[in-house]
């Protein structure tokens, strides 16, 4: 998904920025023809908009609100909910937190190793969707963005949620609209209004029950991934053995 080329040009003009493709490409550090080609094709990725906004010192969130798809981006508080923040904590850090809470050796230190593992990580897009799901959000997102639900499942498995899908999901669940863009990696945590230690604080203040449940979910996901990897290897090896 991307914003339209005409909207992009209008935004550049409205913001008083250069409309030269090569100039813009140079500013965001891509090949000189890249932005020009994107404009010609009429599909400008959100990463280009954010890159240009950053290069000219414009708040990326404000820049994005110029485009119809993201017009309401800043209409809700930017910081994520605790559940959203915890959803981006890696399973290793979640388990470390369990160690701190259950083993004397670790409890004495009183805190887990910092900084936390960065995101995105395996299953982080799916974990975020789970954290904001109040019903059948996958179905609704697929319907509103006009894609098959199986395709959305595949995207979540591969951590490839698009910015439009993320904002649509946030819009449907009533949570921060900006957080979705942080989750998909379009915006940095700072730009998205996340506090420096938002994830750590959310993890520390999390009750035991939801923590155990979350770890269990993540372990189940890891087991599924491991099984998929083993099956893929077995399939590839058997077929190569049979045909070759």
């Amino acid at each position: 998904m991307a914003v339209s080329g005409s909207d992009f040009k209008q935004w550049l003009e409205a913001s008083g920025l250069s409309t030269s493709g090569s100039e813009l490409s140079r500013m965001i550090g891509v090949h000189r023809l890249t932005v020009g080609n994107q404009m010609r094709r009429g599909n400008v990725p959100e990463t280009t908009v954010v890159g240009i906004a950053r290069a000219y010192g414009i708040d990326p969130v404000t820049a994005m609100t110029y485009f119809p798809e993201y017009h309401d981006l800043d209409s809700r508080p930017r910081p994520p909910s605790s559940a959203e923040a915890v959803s981006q904590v890696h399973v290793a850090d979640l388990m470390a937190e369990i160690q701190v809470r259950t083993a004397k050796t670790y409890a004495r230190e009183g805190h887990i190793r910092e900084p936390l593992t960065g995101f995105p990580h395996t299953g982080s897009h799916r974990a975020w969707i789970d954290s904001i799901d109040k019903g059948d959000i996958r179905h609704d997102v697929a319907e509103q963005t006009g894609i098959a639900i199986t395709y959305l499942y595949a995207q979540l498995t591969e951590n490839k949620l698009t910015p439009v899908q993320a904002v649509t999901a946030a819009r449907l669940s009533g949570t921060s609209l900006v957080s979705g863009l942080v989750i998909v990696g379009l915006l940095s945590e700072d730009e998205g209004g996340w506090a420096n230690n938002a994830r750590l604080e959310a993890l520390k203040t999390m009750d035991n029950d939801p923590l155990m449940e979350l770890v269990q979910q993540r372990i189940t996901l890891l087991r599924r991934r491991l099984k998929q990897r083993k099956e893929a290897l077995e399939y590839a090896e058997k077929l190569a053995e049979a045909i070759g």
Partner: protein
Amino acid sequence: MTDSIHVISISFMLIVLGGATFHRLTRKTTPEGARLLLRPSGRLALMGIFLTVANVMTVQPIYEFIDSHMFVSNGTSAIAQILAMTAVSLLGMHLAISYKSDFALRWMVGLRGALALLVASLGAFSALIASDTPEHSPRLVGYLDQPAVQVMHWIALTYIAYVMSILFRPVFQDSHVNPLRLTRVGSRLILLGFVLSIGRALAFPWELEAWPHAFYGFEVISQASAVCVVIGLWMFAYTRTHGVARQKLPDKLPID
């Protein structure tokens, strides 16, 4: 011009097929020699031998020598054609078993597969007998205007298309779902080879209009198809011998 196309393409085919088959039989990692033919993957070596011999037989001096000992004039063409069809049949059987496709197994392996090959072979011989070809002519190129000769070529193309149509679905599926990039590309190449062969068989009526001048041009399509399949199969062999699957698809937990 057409002769040079023929010489170049046949030489190329002999190098590719002969080389691959020779390598398969004599490689240092598994020096099994002729014993390889007794193993499942030996079907491919056998296929390579048949196809190579079929191509060798179409080289003018060899063709004339063999044909001078034949009980029917230009019987060598029919034998070369049957060898080529047997090679395709072996390929079909090998892929049907490897992909474990019920449909392909039902139609390629066992009585039905043998019957199809037998009918095609008898058809080719009958067409040769029905034709009037007194002079030695590899692939009966000198008699392409005769309907019986055209039928003979059509039988070969149809049989090949038959085998490849049966295998199309499993190969197509694998070309999309195979988790390993190298073998996925291999499946796609095999699929491309199938498409070329099936396409040529379907376009045969139009091909006839361009005969005899463009005969070798159309033959290049079949040879390109064979090369695609051979390279695709080689990719699977490379994956197996070099353990590419285990290198590229580690069965470990993902590390972020």
